[in-house]
């Protein structure tokens, strides 16, 4: 804001000065309010734009299929119905898929937290031969894209006769280099004397992890849990390859059974999609704070 009142004003009376000041203040307040409103407005537009696919999906899922097939704008269902959801549940064993996915994602999340925290504990508090080499090896796995090994993995598990089972969905994902790295980053902030004094007090390693490390690294565990669960829930290529029967299918693959483009099933398919998005979104919204606190407290910095 430019200087409103300049040198010449010194000569005018007190009252006029007060008036000028009041007016200028009003203008400034107005401008600030407009700026704030504009910022909120732009944010609102941006959020609407980014959430459009999701909002649209919810809208279609609530739309009777008859309403969908028009060339006119139909953003909001005129007669919302839950029928699509019911039909989707009937047409494919969606409940089973959802149970499968929860089971698989839950096991993977728990398994990763256990295996990663154990390994990170060893790498940060214990001394052993080849420690640095092994840690480098773990870090190197981050460079190997999962997709580059998928063929051999497929051949391996089919050799094990593991195809179409829970274990084939779970076991390959029971650890992650990123998780080990994240936990180690957290453990590094604790002094080694924390471990040493616990040992002197007669605390075993497992007990140290259980009663000292885990309570101290809740935010890292939270972040890890949210991130892993969402990724496991959203897994696509691997379950596509290794599951064949309805019994073992996860939601992302199972939902593909609804994928066709005739009018009847579009709204049903989207209803199914909405149903399987809800769990991952809920986990994300509930765990967002944890995720941010855990992932970005010094772990990611250049």
């Amino acid at each position, binding site marked *: 804001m430019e200087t409103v009142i300049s040198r010449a004003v010194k000569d005018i009376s007190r009252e006029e000065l007060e008036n000028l000041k009041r007016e200028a203040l009003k203008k400034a307040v107005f401008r600030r309010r407009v700026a704030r409103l504009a910022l*909120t407005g732009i944010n609102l537009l941006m959020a609407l734009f980014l959430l459009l696919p999701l909002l649209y999906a919810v809208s279609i899922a609530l739309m009777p299929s008859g309403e969908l097939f028009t060339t*006119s704008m139909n953003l909001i269902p005129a007669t919302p119905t839950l029928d699509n959801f019911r039909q989707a549940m009937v047409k494919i064993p969606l409940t089973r898929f959802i149970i499968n996915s929860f089971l698989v994602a839950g096991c993977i999340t728990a398994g990763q937290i256990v295996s990663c925290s*154990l390994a990170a504990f060893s790498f940060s508090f214990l001394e052993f031969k080849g420690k640095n080499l092994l840690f480098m090896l773990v870090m190197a796995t981050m460079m190997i894209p999962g997709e580059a090994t998928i063929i*051999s993995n497929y051949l391996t598990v089919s050799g094990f006769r593991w195809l179409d089972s829970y274990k084939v969905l779970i076991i390959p994902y029971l650890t992650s280099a990123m998780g080990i790295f994240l936990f180690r980053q957290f453990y590094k902030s604790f002094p080694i004397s924390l471990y040493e004094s616990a040992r002197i007090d007669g605390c075993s390693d497992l007990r140290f992890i259980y009663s000292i490390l885990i309570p101290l690294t809740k935010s890292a565990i939270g972040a890890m849990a949210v991130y892993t669960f969402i990724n496991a829930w959203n897994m696509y290529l691997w379950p596509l390859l290794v599951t064949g029967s309805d019994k073992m299918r996860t939601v992302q693959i199972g939902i593909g059974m609804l994928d066709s483009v005739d009018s009847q099933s*579009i709204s049903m398919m989207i209803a199914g999609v909405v149903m399987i998005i809800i769990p991952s979104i809920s986990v994300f919204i509930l765990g967002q704070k944890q995720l941010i606190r855990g*992932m970005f407290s010094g772990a990611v910095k250049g």
Partner: protein
Amino acid sequence: MNYKLVTRKLSPYGYIAPAMAIFAIFLFFPFFKTIYLSLFKTNKMGQAKLFVGAGNYSELLSSASFFNSLFVTVVFVLIVVSVSMLLGLITAVLCNQSFPGIRIFSTAYALPMAIASSSAAMIFKIMLHPAIGIVNKILGLHINWISDPRYALICVALLTAWLNSGINFLYFSAGLSNIDEVIYERASVDGANSFQKFFRLTLPGLSPILFYTLVVNIIQAFQSFGQVKVLTMGGPGESTNLIVYSIYRDAFFNYRFGSAAAQSVILFVIIMVLTLCMFRLEKKGVHY
């Protein structure tokens, strides 16, 4: 006593054993097996039958389809990375000042990271539907987005960019909060306007995280699969035949495991070279 000493010596290995076993069986072993397979012709069961040396590679390098797949992937990665990073940056900057409802907006901006590529692709399929899709309705166009080779790749890329914008928002938000507020105050007194502050302070201040995000984004974009499988099946023609989809098709439709393995190796080499190059560049350039 002796027993105790042995357990004490071995226990560190015990703690890393579960993780290491998984890595060994499902990462290191298949990694080398992939390299091994890429040197063979296989049967339908994926067993190595005939040693061909670099045969699979030379076949690939003389195949127009493979080069098309590489080209398509590169274009795809360029679009995805630039758009998703731009979206992440814009949203992070928008959410950097406090205003009422900021928590809701930041959740909204990060939300795409929670959505599966396959689910998103199904939603986009309807949005891009030539007759009833909302995109044509809003833009007033009649384009068959997915079946037109001119648009199919852009559609898949924009969908992927949308999915990745969520995590980029989180990265950039973290980066912005790492910039010391007080340097903006000094810049104000020094006479810098908002643009100067953004380009001279905010962007350089973000550069370390910008770089990290770039690497992660590129690697992630190279591995996109679900959206292609659901939205376009690599088509029309081969216009969206991204490299991972091409690997999948070669292995599980054409049963040419050797060729697919060779493509996997090439994918790995590309990603490794890119990562190393970028870290080399970073050492020279952006960090402080």
